[in-house]
């Protein structure tokens, strides 16, 4: 037995026993334990294997800095790559070490370490090329990776995402953070205090202090109590992982039950009281289990009653470890190695655990644990993310915060204050900066604040294997190799050796690596510089970022006001242009249902819910002039009460939308754009209104969502509507094709517009959305005696394709000009300027071999062409595409397949036969006019 649970009181524990397994072994811990403290108390020395060489590794740290102890957890909830030092132990947990099999203690890949000399940093760039990387890669992939994803694990979902604003966000609940939060809260400021530990207190949880006459632990308790009373928001187990634009701080809260929670906090000021992280000391085999951060050793002892060993060496290059040696003296044999006195460790001995250290003076000390301190690195990640610049402190041997960043202060050990007096003072200074006058400083007793440290960076040519990055297995030799090969820029060093790129992101290793590179290249540490600090500070669950956005809440589709009625009628709903709409109705297979609906629409009458159709009103004395500018077609000549079909172009000349413009009155138009383009067209109209027109004489209102549009189409549509009776005459004389008028339904205005997307006599009835249900029910009711059919979008698509009517974005693409769709009159006739006009006269627009809209006839007796098939032309060297099929259906009306396509020079090639290719199969098609049915348009008035 080496590490063990002491019988001394522990700050964080209760006496309740918690059972768990580690690599299959049944173990016990106490309530309040982390997985790591329970493992230490249970004398588990090997907690994991390193990423590359599968070296045995023990606990190094006690918090987020831990590079070794990563575990997968099941049995309670499923966690992958959980950090044992920050994960609370829960009864029933099955804990497995990652990257080791069958167990961390007996890993079958431990042999890899014997070949380490042949696989140093970046060796893979130099080999595995012959005969082919693909031969080696699968094996390497299997070896890589840490934890294992459980493919069928279930999750508490969704994760909460909370937006918060406050006067002051304090990151870190150690002495500096607590004091700041308290004083700011006392001054009436709204305060959020977060700490990534399981409880508040930071270093006061394991260091002795007397503050305001009470011990540190009690002082923390009182602070917590008062913060609660003052209404400050205190979040423990909560990591501030990133500072983003305009001082948005992202926090991730780990909760004992349920998914983690994302906080987006926008504070007026941020205090970073994020503390400092202890560094290792460089000596041979400094990665052996049992070699631990001195701070961690003290924390495990005082907080969890877990002692790292019985024969302990405390090795240090600074003055902070005095308390560590004192704390262990009553329960263990303690020897100190103080680098400040000129003696240092040159190497550790041991196999699966350290058993001795060898000193520079030649002596050997037997030991079962080595608690080391190579100094402290301030945690300045968030400061750097906030665009703060660092400066090098030659005395304290740290990078520390340089010039202030607006609204961000860095305090306590995070600003390289290592004595409690200085810590409180730095908090006071920051408080004064945000206007908290003369904060009362806590009274300290018996606390010396002087911090001394001597330089102990790793040196070139050190004997043995001196580890820098424990998780990624980077040694001093790897850094020497990088220097030798000229990977001397700090970013090259990182990428070439993978130093600091493991899941701990180099919290304990980066500075030592930089210092060695500086030495190797004759530069100073600040000349080498640091890599960029990127979020997140510690890994954050993907679920926190996704929040509620999953399933139907991810990009939610828009819903029709009549959706429930359609469902009652057996509608199959599909998403079209962002709207959930009936594709077809009834129990039949899709193909049959669509054919039936289309057929019946041609024979009698169809009812169709066209509510998403754009209804953007344009009003005012400049409206006509404006419409002329917006549309490719001339619109100012349209008479009130009439409609006209037209195109809206981009400035590039590309057809953006097509549709009918209704002129209700002299100064009032309605733009009926495609349903999927409503937001885009509306924004476009606003843009040009504000840019070129007088906003007092032109007004735009998007009434799409407030207005439902119900379409009645087919030879019997007029009869049906006459029976409904809307107080308007449906005679051809008073309401001819492309005319509009007002009727009323039970006292509600109905706009009746006679336009047709089917080629048959059709009426669009637009009514307030909240009255649509009653009107639709009436249409259905009366429709029963007229053999009316409910028609979904698929049948409508078939009918419009028979007529050669296009759907923009389907039958046109992002290169289609209006001429390609057969509309060229405005080009010569329309004199006033309009959107995209100049682009229609470019070299490209005038090119004779453009793709143009055509019909494509099946001539081989086969079925319909697949949409997406290409017309092809055989050329000398192979073949090339002539364009493609954009729409293709079986026409029930014609009893044959029909298709539309964009084909090169198609307009001039009606009657020609071309090859059509789909997934390697060749067929032939005859080019035809787009309109396959009723080319004279007689059915509009039938």
């Amino acid at each position, binding site marked *: 037995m080496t590490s063990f649970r002491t019988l001394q009181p522990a700050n964080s524990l209760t006496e309740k026993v918690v059972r768990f397994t580690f690599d299959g072994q049944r173990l016990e811990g106490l309530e309040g334990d982390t997985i790591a403290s329970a493992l230490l108390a249970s004398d588990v020395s090997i907690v994991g294997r390193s990423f590359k060489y599968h070296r045995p590794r023990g606990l190094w740290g006690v918090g987020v800095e831990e590079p070794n102890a990563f575990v997968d957890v099941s049995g309670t909830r499923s966690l992958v790559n959980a950090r044992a030092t920050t994960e609370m132990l829960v009864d029933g947990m099955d804990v497995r070490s990652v990257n080791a099999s069958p167990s961390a203690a007996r890993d079958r890949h431990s042999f890899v370490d014997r070949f380490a000399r042949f696989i140093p940093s970046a060796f893979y760039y130099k080999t595995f090329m012959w005969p082919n990387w693909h031969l080696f890669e699968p094996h390497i992939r299997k070896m890589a990776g840490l934890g294992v994803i459980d493919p069928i694990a279930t999750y508490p979902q969704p994760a909460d995402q909370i937006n918060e604003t406050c006067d002051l966000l304090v990151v870190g609940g150690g002495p500096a953070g607590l004091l700041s939060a308290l004083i700011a809260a006392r001054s009436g400021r709204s305060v959020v205090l977060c700490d990534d530990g399981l409880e508040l207190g930071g270093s006061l949880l394991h260091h002795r202090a007397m503050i305001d006459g009470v011990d540190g632990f009690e002082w923390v308790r009182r602070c917590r109590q008062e913060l609660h009373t003052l209404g400050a928001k205190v979040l423990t187990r909560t990591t501030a992982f990133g500072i983003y634009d305009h001082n*948005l701080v992202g926090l991730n809260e780990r909760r004992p039950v349920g998914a983690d929670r994302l906080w987006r906090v926008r504070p007026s000021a941020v205090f970073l009281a994020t503390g400092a992280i202890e560094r290792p000391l460089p000596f041979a085999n400094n990665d052996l289990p049992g070699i631990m951060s001195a701070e961690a050793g003290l924390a495990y002892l005082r907080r969890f009653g877990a002692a790292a060993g019985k024969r302990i060496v405390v090795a240090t290059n600074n003055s902070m470890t005095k308390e560590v040696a004192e704390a262990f003296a009553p329960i263990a044999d303690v020897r100190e190695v103080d680098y400040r006195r000129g003696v240092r460790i040159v190497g550790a001995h041991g196999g699966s655990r350290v058993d001795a250290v060898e000193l520079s003076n030649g002596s050997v000390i037997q030991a079962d644990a080595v608690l080391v301190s190579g100094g402290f690195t301030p945690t300045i990640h968030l400061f750097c993310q906030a665009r703060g610049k660092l400066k090098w402190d030659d005395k304290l041997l740290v990078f520390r915060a340089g010039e202030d960043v607006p609204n961000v202060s860095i305090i306590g050990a995070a600003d390289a204050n290592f004595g409690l007096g200085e810590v409180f003072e730095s908090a006071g200074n920051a408080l004064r900066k945000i206007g908290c006058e003369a904060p009362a400083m806590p009274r300290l007793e018996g606390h010396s604040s002087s911090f001394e440290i001597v330089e102990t960076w790793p040196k070139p040519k050190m004997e043995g294997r001196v580890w820098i990055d424990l998780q990624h297995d980077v040694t001093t030799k790897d850094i020497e190799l990088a220097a030798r090969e000229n990977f001397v820029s700090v970013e090259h060093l990182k990428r070439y050796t993978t130093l600091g790129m493991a899941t701990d992101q180099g919290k304990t290793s980066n500075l030592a690596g930089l210092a060695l590179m500086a030495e190797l290249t004759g530069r100073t540490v600040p000349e080498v510089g640091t890599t960029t600090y990127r979020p997140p500070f510690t890994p954050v669950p993907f679920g926190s970022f996704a929040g509620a956005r999953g399933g139907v809440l991810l990009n939610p589709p828009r819903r029709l006001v009549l959706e429930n009625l359609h469902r009652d009628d057996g509608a199959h709903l599909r998403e079209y242009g962002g709207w959930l709409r009936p594709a077809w109705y009834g129990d039949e297979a899709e193909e049959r249902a669509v054919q039936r609906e289309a057929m019946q629409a041609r024979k009698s009458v169809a009812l169709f819910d066209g509510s998403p159709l754009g209804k953007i009103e344009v009003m005012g004395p400049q409206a006509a002039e404006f419409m002329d500018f917006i549309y490719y077609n001339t619109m100012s000549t349209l008479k009130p009460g009439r409609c006209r079909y037209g195109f809206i172009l981009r400035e590039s000349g590309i057809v953006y939308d097509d549709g009918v413009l209704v002129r209700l009155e002299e100064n009032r138009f309605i733009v009926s754009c495609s349903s999927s383009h409503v937001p885009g067209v*509306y*924004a476009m109209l606003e*843009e040009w209104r*504000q840019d*070129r027109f007088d906003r007092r004489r032109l007004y735009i209102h998007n009434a799409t969502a407030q207005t439902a549009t119900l379409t009645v189409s087919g030879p019997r549509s007029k009869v049906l509507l006459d029976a409904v009776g809307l107080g308007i005459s449906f005679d051809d004389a008073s309401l001819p094709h492309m005319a509009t008028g007002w009727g009323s339904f039970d006292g509600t205005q109905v706009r009746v517009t006679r336009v047709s997307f089917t080629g048959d006599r059709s009426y669009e009835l637009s009514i307030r959305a909240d009255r649509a249900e009653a009107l639709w029910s009436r249409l259905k009711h009366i429709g029963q005696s007229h053999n009316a059919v409910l028609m979904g979008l698929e049948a409508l698509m078939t009918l419009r394709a028979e007529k050669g009517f296009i759907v923009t974005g389907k039958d046109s693409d992002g290169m289609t000009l209006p001429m390609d769709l057969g509309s060229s009159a405005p080009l010569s006739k329309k004199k006033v300027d309009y959107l995209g006009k*100049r*682009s229609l006269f470019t070299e490209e627009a005038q090119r004779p071999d453009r793709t143009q809209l055509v019909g494509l006839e099946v001539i081989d007796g086969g079925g319909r062409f697949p949409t997406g098939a290409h017309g092809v032309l055989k050329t000398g060297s192979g073949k090339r595409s002539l364009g493609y099929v954009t729409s293709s259906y079986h026409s029930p009306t014609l009893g044959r397949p029909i298709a539309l396509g964009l084909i090169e020079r198609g307009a001039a090639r009606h009657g020609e036969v071309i090859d059509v290719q789909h997934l390697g199969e060749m067929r032939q098609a005859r080019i035809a006019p787009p309109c396959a049915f009723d080319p004279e348009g007689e059915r509009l008035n039938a």
Partner: protein
Amino acid sequence: MQLFPCPFCGPRSEAEFHFGGDAGNVRPDEDEVSADRWSSYLYMRHNQKGMSPSIWMHMTCGELFQLDRDTLTHSVAGSKALTEGGHR
């Protein structure tokens, strides 16, 4: 998440805004526009690194305005409505 000050609605989340291009990229209105002049208007951009005036639409209120923002630091100097001397 950046906050942009809509001159009409105050500071709002970046997600509510749509970028409309360089301020001052005026549509050529003369009768004969050369191909180069037209393509310059359509495509060529200053794309400044640093403080630059640009046109935005606040999609939730539909108003265009000029925003002076730094494309490198993302700091915002201010915004003004087009009716108040902001220019397109």
